[in-house]
């Protein structure tokens, strides 16, 4: 039976087309689900499993129920470490977000040389974490570092300062390095997201006499909401778990000024070789991060 196009259009509305076909969705999602189930589910479950033991994972398995968890929650240091981790994460994610978003907005204009700027500004992200950390460690060096050299010449400081070695400046310095390394990804995601905003919306805003600030607030940001939310959630998750840059810069010092939770996990697992307690810490981190992501979703209004 052949119907006229108009009739068909009324029957096959976009809504029915999409809701009707569950099987298709499953097929599309299958490769990803399968890959992750095979490769990630096992390690995750393994991690949960060994957190219930005192073990060296080879020949010594002592089932200790939740003793590892009890130890964590009764330890005085744990809260302090979590607090330090939160400080680091907040500083880093916020910094990367503001810088990344601002740069993306700037790059999205018709400024001359934007391809050049785009390439330059993405460079920090291209280097391995260890190289970035070592570079900055050296630049922060009190005697041989570029940082102090410039600041001394500009008269900002009077004598060589140990940025990574004093308890007040260590964490901000580490955050600075993390922001430098990580803002390009945020910038990239925002930039791609900005491309999807229809030009008409800007034009109609302009016709309505909106200033650039209003246009930003009422046109750009709402359209970017999904990208912003996902990048904030995942960025927070990643930097909460972060290890490498801090380890190279300060190893969690001085004293405990930059001791984030991943450093604790690393030391427990690979310096003390206590895998049970390390796994328990990892599980606790997992739940904390999970809660944070739920918080984000509530706050930014997940729109599915």
């Amino acid at each position, binding site marked *: 039976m052949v119907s006229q196009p108009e009739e068909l259009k009324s029957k096959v509305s976009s809504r029915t087309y999409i809701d009707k076909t569950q099987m298709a969705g499953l097929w599309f999602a299958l490769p990803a689900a399968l890959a992750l189930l095979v490769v990630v589910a096992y390690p995750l479950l393994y991690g949960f499993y060994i957190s219930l033991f005192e073990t060296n994972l080879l020949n010594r398995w002592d089932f200790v129920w939740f003793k590892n968890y009890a130890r964590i929650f009764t330890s005085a240091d744990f809260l302090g470490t979590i607090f330090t981790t939160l400080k680091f994460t907040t500083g880093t994610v916020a910094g990367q977000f503001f810088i990344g978003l601002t740069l993306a907005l700037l790059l999205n204009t018709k400024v001359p040389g934007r391809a050049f700027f785009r390439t330059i500004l993405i460079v920090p992200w291209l280097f391995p974490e260890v190289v970035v950390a070592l570079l900055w460690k050296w630049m922060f060096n009190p005697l041989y570092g570029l940082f102090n050299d410039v600041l001394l010449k500009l008269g900002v400081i009077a004598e060589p300062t140990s940025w990574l070695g004093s308890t007040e400046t260590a964490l901000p310095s580490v955050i600075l390095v993390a922001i430098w390394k990580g803002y390009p990804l945020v910038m990239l995601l925002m930039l791609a997201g900005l491309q999807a905003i229809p030009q008409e919306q800007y034009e109609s805003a302009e016709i309505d006499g909106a200033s650039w600030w209003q246009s930003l607030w009422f046109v750009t940001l709402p359209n970017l909401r999904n990208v912003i939310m996902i990048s904030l959630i995942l960025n927070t998750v990643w930097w909460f778990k972060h290890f490498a840059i801090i380890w190279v810069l300060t190893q969690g010092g001085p004293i405990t000024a930059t001791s984030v939770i991943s450093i604790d996990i690393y030391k427990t697992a690979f310096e003390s070789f206590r895998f049970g307690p390390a796994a328990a810490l990892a599980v606790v981190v997992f739940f904390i*991060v999970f809660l944070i992501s739920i918080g984000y979703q509530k706050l930014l209004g997940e729109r599915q």
Partner: protein
Amino acid sequence: MTLKQRRRWQLTAVFIALAIASAFVIVPVLWMFSTSIKTIEEMFSLPLKWIPDTVSWDAYKRIWTDYPFGQYIFNSLFVVSGATIISLLVSCLAGYGASRFRFLGRTAFLTFLLITQMFPSIMLLIPYFKLMKTLGLINTYGGLILAYVSFTIPLASWLMLGYFESIPKELDAAASIDGASRFRIFWQIIMPLALPGAAATAIYAFIVGWNEYIFALVLASDVKMKTVPVGIGELIGQYRIAWNDMMAVALVVSIPLIAIFLYLQKYLVSSLTAGAVKG
């Protein structure tokens, strides 16, 4: 002030802002370069010099002669390209599926994606190793590709979901009226419009894989299989760091990355054309 003058002021301001931001990137990178042409003797001399008294390009030679970085670069390129392509395909499919279809278990699937990212990676080292050993993938390209695919699928899928969401669903409906199969709609109609998102996702997946260190170290420790980050890690000895070699290597291997970025850039800025919706 006329509109045109205002625009020019704005663009000038933007240019200056971008130039200042770029300076924060260029200065450290120039320092890296300056380090790479220094000899060990001049590395820690005071006062600080940008151009050393003895300019030595030996580090750039040593990369190829003293260390097998040629092999390392090949390994990295192969593994990471493979992982990126697979990851991109899988996550585009997943993102599209989650965007267009409210299938049973969709929320669980999306949450599962996020959850896989929440566990501290250091604890995944040993189970990953055991898994790869069971699959016989230790010291193979396949093992690393599989690992990197698993690292990048979650964010990549979420990103593609986000980008697909911003493409009007009426397009799909319109195309289906014209009789296209679901896969064709995905592949021929919607994907081209999602290219900026796909480009960003591809860049993300590539960089993540390229710079990954600890899993590469553990899963592919055979000298023929090592990747670039592992090679760089070897420059950090127990008692000394080969600063000039390391900076030279880091700069040299960033060149393919910049090349790939330059290539993918043009997709990043293609914009949605208006009027794509039929009817």
